């Protein structure tokens, strides 16, 4: 018995995919931001090297869960802890969608300002500086309060609560999408106008624009749940935002239909630095996604062959 399984393992090691696995294409979802296109293409190319058939399907970030539940779609490579938690949990509850672990990428999201604001508001990046110079950030609509451009309401983030808890003289204005968010940043940066807004990383914006995240008191779960913890003893949310991993999720039937592929996807791991460098290549230097991914695979052969080896 033991010998049989040994032999099997040896066979699988040589041809990891082709054993008893389906030759149907594995459907990976594509969204509309370059980073996600890169991770997905990278995973897809690696799977192709392992002998799987792969198909890319364009899908909306949240709406895709409907497809993952029914098995119309199979793999989603980037579900951010920060923006996808709710949809992800709802999908896990049905049992038709499973978590394939972290991508290795860490999402950071926080208040962010361009470097030129440091002159007008000395004391940054410490958050207490914002107390003194809220006026610097004000616009006709919000005066005398400063204007903070938050993410879409659906992102959550508790910025309204944070402003209250920390006693900042800011008004929170919610952008509807992240395209609108960065459009405002681009415009303000061109004019060198004051702005403080929600920026997240990994993303091309912190690479393109010179600037920093505001340093709030560090996040802890207690700070969000217990008013007495933190700088303001009477309010919760008196700290920065949590940082969280970016997850890979899949249709529950994946491991059964393509066990080797499911393993390979679980093994997928990428660092923020590598990811950031690839996003910069694509979004700022105008290279194509396929070329960028191919270049990375050329330079990191050991890494990705490790994902598909047994």
């Amino acid at each position, binding site marked *: 018995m033991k010998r049989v399984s040994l032999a099997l393992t040896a066979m699988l090691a040589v041809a990891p995919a082709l054993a008893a696995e389906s030759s149907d294409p594995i459907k990976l979802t594509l969204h509309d931001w370059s980073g996600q296109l890169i991770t997905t293409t990278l995973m897809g190319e690696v799977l192709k090297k392992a002998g799987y058939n792969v198909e890319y399907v*364009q899908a909306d970030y949240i709406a895709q869960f409907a497809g993952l539940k029914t098995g119309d779609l199979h793999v989603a490579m980037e579900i951010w802890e920060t923006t996808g938690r709710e949809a992800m949990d709802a999908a896990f509850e049905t049992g038709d969608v499973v978590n394939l672990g972290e991508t290795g990428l860490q999402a950071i999201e926080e208040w962010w300002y361009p470097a030129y604001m440091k002159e007008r508001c000395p004391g940054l990046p410490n958050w207490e500086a914002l107390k003194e110079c809220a006026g610097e950030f004000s616009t006709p609509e919000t005066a005398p309060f400063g204007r903070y451009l938050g993410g879409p309401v659906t992102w959550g983030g508790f910025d309204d609560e944070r402003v209250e808890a920390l006693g900042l003289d800011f008004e929170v204005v919610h952008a509807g999408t992240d395209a609108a968010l960065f459009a*405002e940043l681009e415009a303000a940066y061109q004019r060198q106008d004051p702005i403080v807004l929600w920026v997240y990383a990994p993303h091309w914006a912190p690479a393109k624009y010179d600037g920093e995240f505001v340093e709030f008191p560090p996040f802890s779960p207690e700070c969000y749940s217990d008013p007495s913890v933190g700088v303001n003893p009477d309010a919760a949310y008196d700290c920065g935002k949590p940082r969280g991993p970016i997850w890979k999720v899949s249709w529950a039937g994946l491991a059964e239909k393509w066990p080797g592929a499911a393993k390979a996807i679980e093994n997928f791991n990428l660092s923020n630095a590598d990811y950031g460098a690839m996003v910069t290549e694509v979004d700022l230097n105008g290279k194509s996604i396929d070329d960028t991914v191919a270049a990375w695979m050329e330079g990191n052969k050991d890494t990705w062959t490790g994902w598909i080896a047994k």
Partner: protein
Amino acid sequence: MTARLLRSGTLFWTVLFAVTWVLSSYSFQLYKAFDARWIVRFPKKWQLPLEDRISDFLDWLVEDASFHFFSFRDLTRAIAALIEAPYQVLRNVLIEGFSSGYGDTAVQIAPSLSWLAVIVTIMAVGHYARDWFLSVLVGVCFLYLAVFGQWESAMITLASVLIAVPIGVIGGLLLGIFAYRARWFERLIQPVLDLMQTVPVFAYLVPILILFGFGPVAALVATVIYAMPPMVRITIVALKTVPKEIVEAGMMAGCRKRQMMWKVLVPSAIPTLMVGVNQVIMLTLNMVIIASMIGAGGLGFDVLASLRRLDIGGGIEAGLGIVVMAIALDRASQAFADRSARHPLDGNLLQRHPWSGTVVLVIGATLILGQFVPAVQTYPDALTITTGPFWSDAMKWINVNFFDTFEAIKTVILQWLLLPVKKFFTGIPWAWGIIATGLMAWRVGGWKIGLLAALLMTFIATSGLWPKAMVTIYLCGVSVLIATLIGIPLGIWAAESPRAGRVILGLMDTLQTLPSFVYLIPVVMLFRVGDFSAMIAVILYALAPAVRYAAHGLKEVPPALIEAGLMSGCTRRQLLMRIKLPLATPQLYLGLNQTIMLALSMLVITALVGTRDLGQEVYIALTKANAGQGIVAGLSVAFIAIITDRIINALAAGQRDRLGI
């Protein structure tokens, strides 16, 4: 008699407005004085659990509903497969080529049509439909797609248009014919059509995805739902307006019911029916962006992806790609509508069918040549051009140099128009809002419409969406007001001077087919996130019908009446103000109606720049995949649209009676 009526009318409106204004301004004081919070906020415990009911129902429909032998989802999946098959073939023909197997083991059987072959085909269609001029026009449109490097995406979009439009047209035609034959069906289908046109697509996207599977088919289904209603309506109207003489001639010739329909009624209604076809094409292209969000890919996806990385030039180029495709398809379909029968040509097979012959030859030649010269098969990348840097620089220049001016204008408009109107609408206590809407509708259109309006508003209140509905009405109201103020003069100008008219109407076509996302991002860069940016986007989108109907209405004024005016010595100005405009009022109302409809349909898009209206509610529901919430909010939008539609139609009817048209 008239004077008294008018006076009482004025009195009615003045009193209604005054009461509303007082209640709106002092609603908060009233609440404090009577300690009755229900005045300003609809009590939670009276809210109907509609969202959950609808979600539960949809869950049941998707998971458990069955017709004994197969489930409901099997049925929808079968339909999906039926649509998918021809779509996949078209994709293979246009872009992917035919191959068997997947990945590394794939073997190509035949390549796709080369770009040259597609352009020659479309030019042949253009020439067949009208003349060389049209042929060159559509050829240039498609050449644009190749030169700007958008061929591949454009062909994917074309494939979905070529599937969605026939389904929309044939489906619409059949439904319309059935409604024409059966009175009860016409009554049944009218409100359904209203809903199909006014419920935002985002609201039913989630259920469609679950039922039809993820990918292009779901996008096609959503597109057809949105694009079909005009075809149904126009079919009904077209069949009803076929001249009696023709129908009688058909009867005399002894036509049976079926012959009557297909040999007499439908052929004589074709010019009007083609207007419907044209509408279906335009609406299908309007949906390209939203369809790309759920897996249709193509040009819409390029627009979204470009704007996500703030590549404004890329967004504009892809957006214009949609516009040129719309222009080509629109002009060709209109030419088909006007096309008169021609004599068949003499000679051999090739001489009798010169165009079909050429097309076959070109396809064959490029198929073979393409194997050796890749440039024949695929437009070479090296020859594509891009204007991206130009747009980004232009945007930057405007931003840096004119921002302060824009900011000043914006502040004035915000302070003197937007904020007071917003305060007025959001202050109205819900109970009075329902009564006032009912009274307005009753006064204009009779007790039936009044009751309907009050009931629909009650639905909105009981769903707990009153505040968001008021923000919606304020935003749309202000935008429609400004769009009308700009649009009607433009329309008058277009009607008075044919040369200006061509330019203006062409511009309106562009504005309507250019995806709003393309100008939304520059607008945000100049005006920041907020109501003002949303308002500008809505105005840009909703301007077209105001212009078009005004121009159309003025042109339709009977020449005899203009003659009479000229005879009695009217100046040009008097002619316009005293004769043309009053006679065009019914058309102006129709234009206003369409402006409002388009403004409401832009709502979901304005949510993307951060408004807090029903559009946002729909969008939130979509991002949370909450089908019930989306449908309730979508219905609320539709109900606002239906109330205004009924009121304005009643106004237009009243005006027509008065004018005796």
